[in-house]
């Protein structure tokens, strides 16, 4: 059981005691009549062959308060698409599958490109963005919840707790981020523990008090892929299509809404998903690529809010980060010891070294071209330039699903 301490400038909704899932779902069922909910699932076909997806489908088939489920299927052939449709059939809620590699959706992407919209390379960011567009096009839901499809420890309680703060009309939240501990026999979540938090705190030390850094530091798990938001937010938010997706999305939320309307919620006692390799020697893949993209996103956001980055500041940042990260390792070593968790200090130190290298790379890339962070335009802009895009997207998805 967690404590009830409120940290940072956003609201933290803890899991206190053992709240009844039945009560939560009953209330959600009532609230969803006023604020219908769409669940967006960005997925790869390979995830349907792994251990996570059967569990997720089995849990979702018990959920009664969702209006629609939009699954964006990537890296799938026509045959795979039909297999996934069959796979999702136990779910009683209406399920629409966006077949990213299908002819019609490819033509939709082509439409964006020829009208001057760079929607980026394939990945979670682009998939989520397209799914928001489809939900907005249908106009049936007021709230969008999103979670990954590789959660091995998935339970429908996660979804209920994620949706509740935004769906409950008495609470007035527009954005809710999920958080959880990442524990197996050891502590996981290296990028959040050893990169984001020490980096944000180092930046606070060097730049001074800053609203965005305080906002980012308020999140217990800023890189969690689970969140819930209003469709109004989905319409105005621009999101990055690379690994900077989570941090970039938070930056947009911070830009468009007051922190008073943002919260984080404890959605699971434990959470396990696919782990990324560190790839310390190759900055183009694994956690190194993720690190570079996240750092670029943070630098760009801060620059857009008036922070001036110089060579000197970046040099100090590397040193300051290293100090903060080393202190963090010591804290987690103690935490692991008292909880009887395996803790490889050398491995953690190696990760910090790799992250330091990646921050250095990100600073160089940023100094060469500060505009490199790729943001997908928001839907308001897209619909202005291509007035019929919502209808075309809806037709494409419905035609794919109607076959």
């Amino acid at each position, binding site marked *: 059981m967690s404590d009830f301490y409120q940290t940072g400038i956003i609201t933290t909704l803890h899991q206190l005691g053992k709240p009844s899932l039945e009560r939560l779902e009953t209330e959600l069922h009532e609230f969803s009549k006023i604020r219908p909910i769409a669940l967006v699932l960005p997925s790869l076909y390979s995830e349907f062959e792994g251990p996570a997806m059967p569990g997720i489908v089995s849990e979702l088939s018990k959920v009664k308060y969702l209006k629609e489920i939009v699954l964006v299927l990537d890296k799938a052939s026509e045959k795979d698409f039909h297999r996934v449709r069959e796979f999702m059939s136990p779910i009683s809620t209406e399920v629409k599958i966006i077949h990213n590699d299908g002819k019609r959706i490819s*033509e939709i992407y082509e*439409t964006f490109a*020829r*009208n*001057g919209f760079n929607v980026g390379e394939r990945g979670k960011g682009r998939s989520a963005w397209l799914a928001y567009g489809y939900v907005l096009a249908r106009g049936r839901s007021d709230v969008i919840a999103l979670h990954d499809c590789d959660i091995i420890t998935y339970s429908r309680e996660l979804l209920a707790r994620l949706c509740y703060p935004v769906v409950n009309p008495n609470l007035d939240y527009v954005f809710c981020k999920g958080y959880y501990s990442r524990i197996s026999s050891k502590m996981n979540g290296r990028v959040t523990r050893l990169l984001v938090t020490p980096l944000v705190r180092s930046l606070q030390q060097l730049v001074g008090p800053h609203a965005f850094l305080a906002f980012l530091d308020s999140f217990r798990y800023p890189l969690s892929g689970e969140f819930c938001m209003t469709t109004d937010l989905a319409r105005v938010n621009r999101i990055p299509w690379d690994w900077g997706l989570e941090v970039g999305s938070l930056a947009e939320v911070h830009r468009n809404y007051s922190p008073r309307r943002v919260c984080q919620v404890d959605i699971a006692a434990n959470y396990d998903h696919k782990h990324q390799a560190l790839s310390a020697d190759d900055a183009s893949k694994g956690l190194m690529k993720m690190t570079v993209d996240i750092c670029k996103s943070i630098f760009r956001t801060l620059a857009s809010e008036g922070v001036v980055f110089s060579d000197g500041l970046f040099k100090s940042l590397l040193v300051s980060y290293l100090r903060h990260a080393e202190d963090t390792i010591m804290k987690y070593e103690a935490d692991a010891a008292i909880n009887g968790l395996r803790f490889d200090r050398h491995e953690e130190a190696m990760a910090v070294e790799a992250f330091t290298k990646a921050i250095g790379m990100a600073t160089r890339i940023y100094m060469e071209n500060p505009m490199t962070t790729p943001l997908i335009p928001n839907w308001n802009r897209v619909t202005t330039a291509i*007035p*019929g*895009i919502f209808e075309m997207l809806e037709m*494409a998805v419905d*035609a794919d699903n109607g076959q």
Partner: protein
Amino acid sequence: MEDFINLILDPLKELFLKFKVFVPNFLAMLVILFAGIVIALIIKRFLAKFLAAINFDSWSDRMGFTKLMRRGSMWSKPSAVLCEIVFWLMVIVTLMSGLSALQIPAIDQLVNQFFSYIPRLFSAAMILIIGYLLSGFISRTVLIAAANSGFHYAKLLAQAVHTMLIVLILAMIMEQLHIAPSIVLAAFSIVFGGIVIAIAIAFGVGGIDAARRIIEKEASQKRDERQRDEIDHI
């Protein structure tokens, strides 16, 4: 015996003579077809480059033609579809020209009919394009005007106007193409007349109470204004 042999040979000779006349015509048709298809391919390629240079696809997306194509389950690029249409039109024209080279009276008549139909096809296409743009513009105008004046069913009204205009345009196209003109005219009159009568009945009979309320409200507002005026003068 000679007569009998002639009786057999004469039709064969006649057939051979006809064949001798036909073969050059047939070869001419093949040459026309081949040349026509080659020219059509070249024009298709040039047209594709030209359309790409003027950003035709993007223009089509903004004007709503792409949406119209998608409604008809066409999921290729608008420029690709236009190029295909032009190509196949040229192939058909070439085929007709080739067939006329055969100099067969029945086919000649068919070819003449086809060429005299082309202007109708062209004007029907123009009616479709201009009509579609105009109907979109008018329905948007109705939507904005109705929404600004606080009409609750503005979207429904705009959609109804759009549908009626599309029906009108389709009737005009069918009439232009001479496809069962009397049936089209009768069907159009029945459908349009039916809609007008339905609206008249809906407003005339179903809306009696609503109309009474509106008139009474107007009258009471005028009365109130008159009374207010008197007080203001005091």
